[in-house]
């Protein structure tokens, strides 16, 4: 305890602490700056900004509803595809697969997360979009009458965006779900087997035990999907409209910022784009905080926490 009062100790603590405070300040600064630099748009449109659908920079009309719709719709669709696959992968790697296969599989799923967004976008433009177009032209006539599949089969559009997003979200969700499953005490599984459970019944029990963490993992994937920019921009078609159709070209919040930011002619347009960024920031912030709270609450049910493999986790999250 004497350590605390020595001057060099205080110097060390303050010296390193200053850099820590920079990290905290960075987060606050992002919120503050985005709020300040979007003031024109916030003052001019208020809540109306999110309710109107017309986005016409030339006429000075800015309604962001199509973008928020596109972001939420594409992310939810991506989640619907990605969640079962990601959980399947997590369960397979942590519960089912033979030991020698574990490391290579972890590495391959990590690789899926490591490929840059722009590469997914390039691949999406030239490989996935033609494939989706092929799928769309092959859709039977009676299905095309439904609002979900209405519109011309362009290839680019919501479906392509959702598919590429789901590919990018899968490694994140599965890697966290795997960590969560690892936190389930082995005794729980042994108990289930001792009572005569089959493999699936034991897994179901482990999943139930880890349910808050699993929900957290899925939400973290949702947060990733909301902010994903390049790959989506390149395949979604960039058309600001609210449509339920999977075939329709649409737009997302991140994509409109990427496309129009350097071309913003006047301050109002720029502020409107920054306001979209601000809302994206707040949305991902809330989702991240909630999902981390879920995952954290699970990790603290059983102490002591496992220390082994921290570096491995680190390489995965990077």
């Amino acid at each position, binding site marked *: 305890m004497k350590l605390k009062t020595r001057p060099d100790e205080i110097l060390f603590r303050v010296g390193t602490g200053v850099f820590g405070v920079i990290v905290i300040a960075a987060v606050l600064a992002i919120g503050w700056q985005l709020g300040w630099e979007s003031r024109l748009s916030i003052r001019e449109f208020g809540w109306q900004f999110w309710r109107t659908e017309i986005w016409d920079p030339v006429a000075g009309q800015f309604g962001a509803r199509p973008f928020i719709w596109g972001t939420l719709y594409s992310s939810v669709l991506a989640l619907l595809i990605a969640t079962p696959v990601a959980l399947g992968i997590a369960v397979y790697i942590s519960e089912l697969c033979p030991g020698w296969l574990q490391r290579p599989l972890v590495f391959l799923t990590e690789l899926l997360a*490591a490929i840059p967004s722009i590469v997914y976008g*390039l691949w999406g433009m030239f490989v996935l979009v033609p494939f989706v177009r092929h799928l769309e032209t092959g859709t039977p006539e009676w299905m095309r009458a439904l609002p979900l599949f209405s519109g011309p089969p362009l290839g680019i559009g919501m479906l392509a965006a959702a598919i590429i997003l789901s590919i990018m979200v899968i490694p994140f969700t599965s890697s966290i779900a795997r960590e969560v499953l690892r936190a389930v005490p082995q005794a729980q599984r042994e108990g289930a087997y001792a009572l005569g459970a089959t493999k699936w019944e034991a897994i179901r029990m482990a999943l139930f035990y880890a349910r808050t963490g699993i929900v957290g993992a899925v939400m973290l994937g949702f947060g990733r999907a909301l902010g994903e920019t390049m790959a989506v921009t*390149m395949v979604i078609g960039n058309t600001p409209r609210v449509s339920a159709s999977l075939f329709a070209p649409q737009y997302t919040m*991140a994509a409109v910022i990427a496309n129009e930011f350097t071309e913003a002619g006047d301050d109002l347009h720029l502020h409107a784009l920054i306001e979209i960024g601000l809302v994206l920031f707040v949305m991902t912030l809330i989702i991240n905080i909630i999902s981390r709270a879920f995952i954290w609450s699970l990790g603290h049910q059983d102490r002591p926490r496992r220390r082994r493999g921290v570096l491995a986790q680190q390489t995965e999250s990077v």
Partner: protein
Amino acid sequence: MRNTWRRFLSQGIVVLCAGAVLLALVPLALVLFYVVAQGISSLNWAFFTHMPAPVGEVGGGMANAILGSLMVTGLAALGAIPIGVTAGIYAAEYRGTRVASAIRFAADTLNGVPSIVVGVFAYTVAVLPFHRFSALAGGCALGIMMLPLVVRTTEELLLLVPNTLREGALALGATRARAVFTVVVPAALPGIVTGVLLALARVSGETAPLLFTAFNNAFFTTDPRQPIATLTVQVYTYAIAPYQDWHRQAWAGALVLVTIVLTCSLLARFATARMERMQRGS
């Protein structure tokens, strides 16, 4: 009868889970296949040494963009590594204090901020006041993306260092600073370097934060106050343009990016495996 059904269901789920793994590996294989197949034919020496060719002219390379990527990533590292490592040291050394928890929380939050939002922020602080795009602004954006990765890696790895080492140094009369910088940090250094490399690899593949910070530049420049071309933005520009030859170049650029990522991941993998072996051995 009921037991047969239970066993059947269990087998079915096992097969489904294995199927999910295969399903996720399909896009990975497809992406890698196309990038290699399309990229390899346009990747030649000129790609690394020549400047971009004007529209209509075949050939040319991305020399300026490759240098630009190195520069912007280097600037990011210059800012993020000292700040991140020091903040990580604080978070590990004063674990349990309120400030340390706040740092950890801020780093996790920052990690979840979409890259495009970081780009907008960097624009408001590093482009707007100076009225021009610059390599520095790009480095600022990528540095913010790197920061949380460096903080968390440093912190986690310092916590792996056995407490007895730290206590031993303190017992010999070392000050806290001396114990940390001469005993604890060196023990964790290989891991920290690996983590930093991975963070570098990750941000070097970022495009969105650079679109309106580093912007683009058709010419060769090493001035950090000028807009600068980067590999990722160049790939994007080429991909959305309607020229066949540019698409070829974009694939070549993608191949270079994927090669960088793959190499770094493999290196980190080996380093991690070695470190874990060492930990078990000690």
